[in-house]
Structures are given as structure tokens and as C-alpha cells.
């Protein structure tokens, strides 16, 4: 199955019964949508910067928080859930009546000590406090900020997200005193009121505006851009709208079109963001603008999570790919065959920790460095990819690794199997090695494969095609994809 079909199938499965209620692009509309975006991107070329494997488009410098996020060292702490606003685009449950506990990546941290230990354990370099509206739990926010600043000093960058409705000079002073580096305002949630932003620009080192790209607000944002430039704001972040179970009805009422991507982004939102950047460039707005697309979040933020967690759960013979997944290589077969492979690895004095025979004696797993010792004219190569996942506690019977944050608090990591497939030809296995271990250019690896695949008859073409498809599928878990993806 091709990638496009796979993505569509995954999105259908992910959102289930909601799928038919949403507006998707027909093939013709999809071609038009891609063309429309391409025209915009072409008009921006050489005028914008592409960062993080071309996944982020921006003008001027990125904020320190964004740099930390892109590098994978950002912790997003949802310190509360309640909010003062009621935005149609809010991805969260706004019917919630009771305040919730502080939570990061699905893990609740009831006290600052545990959270600080967590930040240290996973080597975070920045924390963004989000909500709800974090200023609704102002004392708690100060407590968390203070504790983290005290523990990490200047080694950590701290920012908050707010709609600005509760901001005043006194609060800003106290936030600054607690060690806050940056404050980010979603002015779209507060009627595009710039007063709190202007106050913050005087009190906090970095005041940033971070808004969703709302198509109908395009003209309003254009006007704000001129004012923001003069207000002392240092950055404007425009992010793409995403559908969740809480906002999709509001989006459908506005006739938004959805894209087949894991976070169900809105097509018109991306166009609005790019148009705003184009307008700002055309009107010589010097305020740095950063378009935070859904694809950036899916790729870079998730990669960061995986890279932080993978070292804790991978076995020594497994490796972490460039996109943060855990790769496991193995040869499976009859015990006598596995014995032969093991004997070769022993004869070659391969380190014990770099290979392992399973309990059934039918599989030997090994580090990619040992691929060269194995005779693949007689063996297949099983390639598996796992995603590390942080959990509060495992389900009964579920295998998970315990991570102690301190003597009182533990969290757990599990390895979710994503794919397990077998390469059968020596040419495909060698191409796999060249492409993903030696990092050979794709074109060269494909050429190697096509030239060396043993083709005995016409039927062999089907297997050749399948093996090439498999190698291309593996790219999903090996490489970080570049650039904005096709819209469909």
C-alpha cells in the first residue's frame, strides 16, 4: 500500500465515526490546494528561512523557546485546565467545570519536586506553562516557576502561554521575579487586545504573540502586525488550526477543510498563515514571524519526545534512528540455523551486549554493526521499529520500564511495536544497510538494489517491487521528513 493510502486509512481509523462529518478534499481540490500553496511558497522563496529540516518557515530569528522546542528539549506543562475564554478553536474540553492537576505529556505532577526531578531526568532545557489559562492558578504557577528556576538557574528557559485577560503590572512583576523569560499571548482569544501585550513588553524580557491562523481574522491580524512591531513584541508565532473532538463541529460550521495528517490540520489555516507572512514581507514588517505548522509539531515535537525516552528503553543491541524511533534487527529461523549465526558472531568476537538469542532459540537480535558478519544468502533480516511511550503506570501484565524520579515517584516507559517486516533478498538487506546505516544517498542505494537484485524471471519483479516498497516504508521511521507535505 502506498503512503498516501496508508495515511488516509490511519486518519479514518483515528477519528472513526466523525470522519464522514468532516470536509475532505477531492482529488481535484487537492491538486488545486497544492498548487495554491505552491504559488504562495514560491512568492516567499528567498525571503523566508526554512529551519528544522525545512519543517518550519519563518522570517527573522526564532525565539529561544522555539529553538529549544525544535531541538527536542521542551516540556509543555499544562498547569491547569480552566480558562477565562471560550474560543471556537480551542482543542480542549471547555465544558470542564473542575480544575485539573498539572500534567505534562499525560503524566500528572502534583508537586514541584517531582516535576523538577522529571525535567532533570529527561534533560529538558525549556518549559512552557500552558493551560487553560495559567494565570487562573497564579500562585501555583509562581511556585512551579520559582522551584524550577531555583533548581536549574539559568540553564533552563521558562515561558508561559496566556490569553492576557488576567494580566496586570503587578502579576508581570511577580512573574519576572519568579524567573520567567518569555510570555506568549494568544490575542485572538482576547479580542486582539494589545494592551496586556504592551504592558508585558516592558516587564518581561521577551513578549511574544502566538495566535492560531484563523481565516476570517486575516484582515484584523494585518492591522495588528503594524501595531505589534511598535509595541516591543519580539516575535509573532502563527500556528495552524487542528481539529480535535472538542472543536471539529465549530470548524465544520465554518466550512473548514481538513487534511489527512495525524493531527487533522485545517487547510485554510495554513494558507492564512502563509498569506500573512507574505503580506508582512511585502509591507516591510520587521517583526520576526514564525509559522508553526501541524506537520512541524508532529515531526519535530514528537521526535524530541522519542529521542528523550528511547535511551531509557532500548536494548543495547537496538539503535535509535534519526527520527527517534528504536530500530531492532534480527534473524529468525530454526534453532540449528540460529546456532550457526550465533557461532559466527562468537568467532568474530562480537561484544556480548551487541547481540542476543531469545528464549525460544529461534531468533537472534543484533546491532547493525554486526550485519556484515551474517550470511544473508541463507537468512532473512527482520526489521522492527518501536516508539517509546511515557505512561503513568502500566496496565496489568504490560511490559514497561520503571523510571525512578526520586524515592517517592516513579513513571514508566513502554516500547510500542510499530512495524515488523522481513527483507528476504541479499540485495535488499545490503541496500537497507547502505541507506540507513551508512546513510548513503537514496538514489545510490536504489541503484545498488536494482542492479544487484537477483531477478530470475518476470515473477521476480513483483518481489523486487515489494522489497523496494518496504525499504521506502522504513524511511518513515528512519528519516525525519523534510518540507511541507502534499495536501490531500
Amino acid at each position: 500500500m502506498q503512503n498516501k493510502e496508508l495515511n488516509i486509512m490511519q486518519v479514518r481509523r483515528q477519528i472513526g465515526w466523525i470522519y464522514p462529518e468532516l470536509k475532505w478534499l477531492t482529488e481535484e481540490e487537492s491538486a488545486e490546494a497544492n498548487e495554491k500553496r505552491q504559488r504562495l511558497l514560491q512568492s516567499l522563496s528567498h525571503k523566508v528561512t526554512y529551519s528544522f529540516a525545512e519543517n518550519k518557515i519563518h522570517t527573522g530569528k526564532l525565539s529561544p523557546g522555539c529553538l529549544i522546542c525544535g531541538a527536542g528539549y521542551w516540556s509543555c506543562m499544562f498547569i491547569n485546565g480552566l480558562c477565562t475564554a471560550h474560543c471556537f478553536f480551542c482543542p480542549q474540553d471547555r465544558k470542564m467545570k473542575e480544575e485539573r492537576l498539572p500534567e505534562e505529556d499525560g503524566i500528572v505532577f502534583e508537586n514541584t519536586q517531582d516535576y523538577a526531578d522529571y525535567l532533570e531526568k529527561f534533560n529538558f532545557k525549556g518549559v512552557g506553562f500552558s493551560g487553560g489559562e495559567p494565570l487562573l492558578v497564579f500562585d501555583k504557577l509562581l511556585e512551579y516557576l520559582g522551584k524550577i528556576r531555583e533548581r536549574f538557574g539559568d540553564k533552563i528557559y521558562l515561558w508561559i502561554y496566556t490569553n492576557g485577560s488576567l494580566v496586570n503590572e503587578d502579576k508581570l512583576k511577580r512573574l519576572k521575579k519568579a524567573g520567567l523569560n518569555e510570555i506568549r499571548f494568544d490575542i485572538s482569544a482576547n479580542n486582539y487586545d494589545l494592551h496586556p501585550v504592551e504592558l508585558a513588553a516592558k516587564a518581561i524580557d521577551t513578549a511574544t504573540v502566538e495566535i492560531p491562523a484563523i481565516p476570517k481574522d486575516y484582515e484584523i491580524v494585518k492591522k495588528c502586525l503594524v501595531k505589534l512591531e511598535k509595541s516591543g513584541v519580539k516575535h509573532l508565532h502563527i500556528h495552524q488550526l487542528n481539529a480535535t473532538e472538542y472543536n471539529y463541529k465549530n470548524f465544520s460550521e465554518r466550512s473548514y477543510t481538513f487534511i489527512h495528517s495525524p493531527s487533522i490540520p485545517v487547510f485554510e489555516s495554513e494558507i492564512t498563515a502563509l498569506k500573512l507572512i507574505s503580506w508582512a514581507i511585502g509591507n516591510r514588517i520587521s517583526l520576526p514571524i514564525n509559522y508553526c505548522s501541524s506537520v512541524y509539531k508532529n515531526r519535530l515535537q514528537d521526535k524530541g519526545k522519542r529521542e528523550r525516552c528511547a535511551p531509557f528503553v532500548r536494548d543495547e543491541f537496538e539503535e535509535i534512528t534519526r527520527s527517534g524511533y528504536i530500530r531492532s534487527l534480527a534473524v529468525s529461523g530454526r534453532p540449528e540455523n540460529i546456532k550457526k549465526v550465533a557461532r559466527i558472531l562468537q568467532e568474530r568476537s562480537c561484544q556480548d551486549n551487541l547481540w542476543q538469542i531469545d528464549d525460544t532459540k529461534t531468533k537472534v537480535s543484533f546491532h547493525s554493526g554486526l550485519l556484515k558478519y551474517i550470511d544473508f544468502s541463507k537468512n532473512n533480516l527482520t526489521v522492527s521499529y518501536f516508539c517509546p511511550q511515557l505512561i503513568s503506570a502500566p496496565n496489568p501484565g504490560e511490559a514497561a520500564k520503571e523510571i525512578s524520579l526520586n524515592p517517592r515517584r516513579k513513571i514508566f516507559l513502554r516500547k510500542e511495536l510499530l512495524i515488523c517486516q522481513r527483507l528476504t533478498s541479499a540485495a535488499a538487506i545490503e541496500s537497507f544497510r547502505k541507506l540507513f546505516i551508512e546513510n548513503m544517498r537514496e538514489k545510490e542505494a536504489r541503484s545498488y538494489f536494482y542492479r544487484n537484485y537477483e531477478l530470475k524471471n518476470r515473477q521476480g519483479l513483483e518481489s523486487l517491487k515489494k522489497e523496494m516498497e518496504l525499504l521506502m516504508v522504513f524511511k518513515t521511521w528512519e528519516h525525519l521528513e523534510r518540507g511541507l507535505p502534499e495536501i490531500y
Partner: protein
Amino acid sequence: MQDSKILRKNRDMVTRTIDKETILLPIYRISDDIDCIYSLNKPASRIWELIDGKRTLFEIKKNVLREFDATAKEVDKEMAGLLKDLKEVKAILG
């Protein structure tokens, strides 16, 4: 089809032969999703073989006429169709 035209093969195309049939395997991708494989019949295989960046289309045609039991009209038609297809998949340049 200009008889004096000289075509060359895209070097990013791997050629394999099975059961006397020529198979073209592009190492570039036609689109993000599709890996295409092209198979050529006997006359097409011979035309492909003769495209070497030196021979003109006229010379290729002459060779084909000599080697196959076909009229000039038939060869013209075969060549025109094949070259159009090969150009479409970027197998030939020039």
C-alpha cells in the same frame, strides 16, 4: 520526430534483462508514492539499446528496419509511441 535528433538515456535508469525482455527501473521516483517499473517489447528493447547519445533517430530507424520484418511506417509508429512514453517517464533526454 526529427530524423537528425540525437537522444541520450537518463543515467538514473537501471536496465535489466529477463526472459529476453528489457526492464527499466528508475532510481528517481516519479511521484512520492509510486515506484514504476517499465518493460519493453523486443523492438522497443532494441531501440532502447540503440539510444546511445551518438546515433541519430534516422540511424536508429535504419537499424531497426534492417533487423525487423517491418515497414518504415510501422517502425515510425512504434518509435514515435515509444519515444513519447520514454520522455514522459524521463527515461530519455534530449
